[in-house]
C-alpha cells in the first residue's frame, strides 16, 4: 500500500482548533487525548514587529482516520479545516504539491 500523509499549508492556519475537535469527535477521545494539537507562536520577526504562526502537529494517536479512508472519506481534520489548508494524499503527490506552496509542512504517521 502506498504511504499516505497530510500536507499542511500552515501560513493559512488560523489556529481555530477545528482539526483537534474533529479528531476528538471522530475517535471519541476524552479530554487530554488528541491526534493533532495546534501550537501558537507570537514573536518579533525580521521585518515585522509582531508575527503570529499556528501549526497543527500530529501525535502518535493520529491514524490518518483509516476508518474514514476505507469509506472513501478524508480524515476528519482535513475535511473540516476552516481554512482548507490541509491536504490528505499519497506522499509522492503531496511532495509535488508542496513545491508550489510556501510555508508548508508534511506529516507522515508512524
Amino acid at each position, binding site marked *: 500500500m502506498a504511504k499516505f500523509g497530510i500536507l499542511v499549508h500552515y501560513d493559512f492556519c488560523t489556529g481555530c482548533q477545528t482539526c483537534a*475537535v474533529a479528531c476528538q*469527535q471522530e475517535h471519541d477521545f476524552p*479530554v487530554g487525548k488528541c491526534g493533532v494539537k495546534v501550537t501558537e507562536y507570537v514573536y518579533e520577526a525580521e521585518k515585522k514587529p*509582531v508575527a503570529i504562526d499556528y501549526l497543527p502537529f500530529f501525535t502518535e494517536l493520529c491514524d490518518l482516520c483509516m476508518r474514514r479512508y476505507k469509506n472513501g472519506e478524508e480524515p476528519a481534520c482535513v*475535511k473540516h*479545516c476552516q*481554512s482548507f489548508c490541509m491536504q490528505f494524499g499519497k506522499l509522492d503527490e503531496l511532495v509535488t504539491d508542496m513545491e508550489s506552496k510556501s510555508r508548508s509542512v508534511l506529516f507522515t504517521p508512524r
Partner: protein
Amino acid sequence: MIQNDNVDVFRTLTWSAGAGCHGGCGQKLYVKEGKLVMVEGDENNPWNQGRACPRVLALKQYVYHPDRITTPLKRVGSRGEGKFEPISWEEAFDTCESKMREIREKHGAESVIFAQGTGRDVGGPISFLAYNYGSPNWCQLGLSGQSCYTPRLGAMKASTGEFAVLDASQFSEKRYEDPEWRPPKTIIVWGQNPPPTCPDGFFGHWVVDCMQRGSRIISIDPRNTWMSTRAKYHLQLRPGTDGALALGMLNIIIREELYDKEFVEKWTYGFDKLSERVKEYPVEKVSRITWVPEQTIVDAARLYATSKPSAIQWGVPIDMCPQGTSVAQAISHLWTVTGNIDIPGGNVIARPAFGVTTYPYTTEELVGLYGQDLVDRLNEKRIGCDTYPMVKGFRGWAQPDMAIDQINSGKPYPVTGAWIQTANILGGQAARARFHYEALKKLDFVAVVDLFHNPTTMALADIVLPAATFAEKDSFRSWWAPMGVIHKKIQVGECKSDWEINFEMARRLSDKKLKWNNPKELFDERLSVAGTTFDEMSKNGPWKMPEDGPFKPYRRHERGLLRRDGKPGFETETGKVELYCKAYEGWGLDPLPYYHEPPQSPVSTPELFEKYPLIMITGARSSMFFHSEHRMIPWLREKNPDPYVEVHPRTAEKFGVYDGEWIYLENDMGRVKRKVRISLRVHPEMVHTLHSWWMPEEKGREPDLFGVWDYQINQLVPGPQHSDSGFGGGQYKTTLVKISRIDRREVDNG
C-alpha cells in the same frame, strides 16, 4: 466512532444554541436509534462547503451534557437560593400565563420586558410573543446602546435604504466558481478578527477564502491578530477612535480625487457637504487621535480607493463607539464614494432571501408581520421612543439602558416582569452587571428559557423552561442568503424549541385567536413568498438561493430592482445614497458623520487615566465559546480553560506580574480576576481580555452564582454612554483599568 449500520444522516442548518452563533452553516447529523452520534459539515451547502467549527463538532457533548435542563422547573426556595423542582409543561405554561396576565391587567403589557441575547433564531419567536402579548419592550437587555450590529444596520438603512455586506459570492450557489464574481482586490477588515467568529450572517473564514484568491488585507485593529500579521497595512488604532480614522480616510480619498466620480455624480446626494465636513479631519490630526502613523493612513486610504473592487468587512467595535450610528455612516460612505456598492467583489446590498422574515431587522418587517396599527400603537409605549426618534424610527427595540433604569424608577410606568430567552444577561452582555442584577432582582415575575443553569437562571428565575438545540428543533432561517430550514431529528428530555414555547404562550396570551394551529403553519406562511413550504425545504437541501432579481446582486440600483416604485436608484427620500443623510436630519441627528472622543480615554479623562493607565479591550472572540456559552463542554474548555488577559511584556514588567499569574483588573466600579498571558498581541498601553466568563463548575446558588462576581468583566464597564441616536456605546472596548496583584494572604485564607 460511528458504525455505518442503522445510522441515518440528516442535513440541517445552525442558528441556535448548540453552535450558538449567527448560523447558516449546513451540517450533517448522524443519528442512530434516535440518538445523535456524530456531526459533520455539509459539503453540499454552499455556505460552509463542508467545513465546521469546534462548537459544532463538539455538539454531542453539548446535547447530552449531564447538566442540561431537561424539564420545566419552578423555583421553590427564595430567589438565588438555587432550589428548583421539576414541573410539567402544563403547569409551567399555566404559571407563566397567569403571572403575565396579572401584570398586564395591573400595569399594562408594556410592563413585561422581553430580553434576548445574540442574533439567532430567537429574535423571531421572542418578538412574536411580545407583540402577541402586547408589549413593545423587546431588546437585548444589558447590551448598552443596543450596540451589536443595530447601529451599523441603522446607519446603512438610513443613508442607503438597504444593508450591505462584503461580497464573498455568498449569494451564489456556485460561490467562488461563479463567473460573475471577482475576489475583492483589497479588503479592509475593520475592528474584527474574522477567523474565530462568524458574526452578522457572515462566515469568518470567507475572508480567508478571498485571501487565498488574491485579496490583500488592510487590518484596522488595536490588537495583533492572525489577520493583521498577514495584512499589507495594519492600522493599530487606539480603541474607540474608528470614527476619526474613517473621516480621515474619506478626507484623503476626496482631496486626492480618488473617489468614483461617475458613481458619486449619478447615485449620491450631499457629496459637497460631506467634502466640507471631512476637511475637519486632516491626516495629521487623525494620526494624533488614532495613534496610527500618518503615512500608514494615507497608504491604506489610497490602496482601498484605487484597487477596485474593494470591500470592507466590519465588526462590533464600531457599534460600541458611543457615536456608533455616525461611525458606521462614515465607514459605509467609504464604499459609497469609491463606487464599491453592489458590484462583484465590493460591498453588495444584502436582503433577506426572497423577502422572507424570520427575525425582523427593520420597522418595515415588523409592520409586515404585525400591521401598521399595532406597531404604531406599541411605539407609543416603547421605552426610548419618546427620547430618541431613531429608536422610534428604526427597528423595534426598546432602549436597553433606559429599560433597566426604568425598572428602578418605575417612571413613566412600572416594569415588573421579564421574559428572558437564551440570554445569560448577568454572565454575559450586561454592562454594569451588578446594577442589572440588583434591578432585575426587584421584578415580580421572571421566566427564563435556557438550556443550562447559569448566573441568570440562578439569580432571577421563577420559572425555567428548557430550550432545544438546533438538532432538536424545527425553525427557519432567512438572514441574507440562502434561505433555509432547521429540522428536528432528536429529542432530549422534554426540551422544546423557542418557537414551540413562544407559540403556545402567544396562543394563551393573545387577544385574538392565532390564525395558525401550530408553528409549522406559521413557517409555511412566512416561506410562501419563496414559493415553498417547510416540508419541501426539509426534503430538498435544506436551503434555497434566490434567483436573479431584487434579492440577488449585482447593480440592482441601475436595474430598478431596489425601489418600491421600480425606478432606478435607492429606496431613500432622494432616491440616492445619502452622504448627507435626510433620515438622520429628520430624526434631529447630525446628517453628516463626526467624531467624538470616547467617554473614558487618555484624552477625555486624563485624571482617570493617571489612576487607571490601561485601555481595556474586551470581547475578542474565541472559536471555543459563543459569548457566555460552552464553558461546560469538555472538548472546548480544554482548549481555553481560563479567562486570561493579554498583557504586553513591557506592561507586565511595569506592573510586576508574571505569565500565568492570577491578578485583578480593577477600576472604580470593581475588580475582576484574570490570568496573565504575556503577549506581543496587545499594545503596551492596552490590555485585552475575553468576555462573558463564569464557571459552571463552581457553586450555582448565591452568593457564588457560578463565580460570576469573580470573573464577569462587564462589572468594570460603566453605564449608558450612547449618543443622541440612542444607539451605540457601552465602553466594552474603551474602559480604563489597572492591574493589581492578588494579595497572597487573601488567596490562602480563601
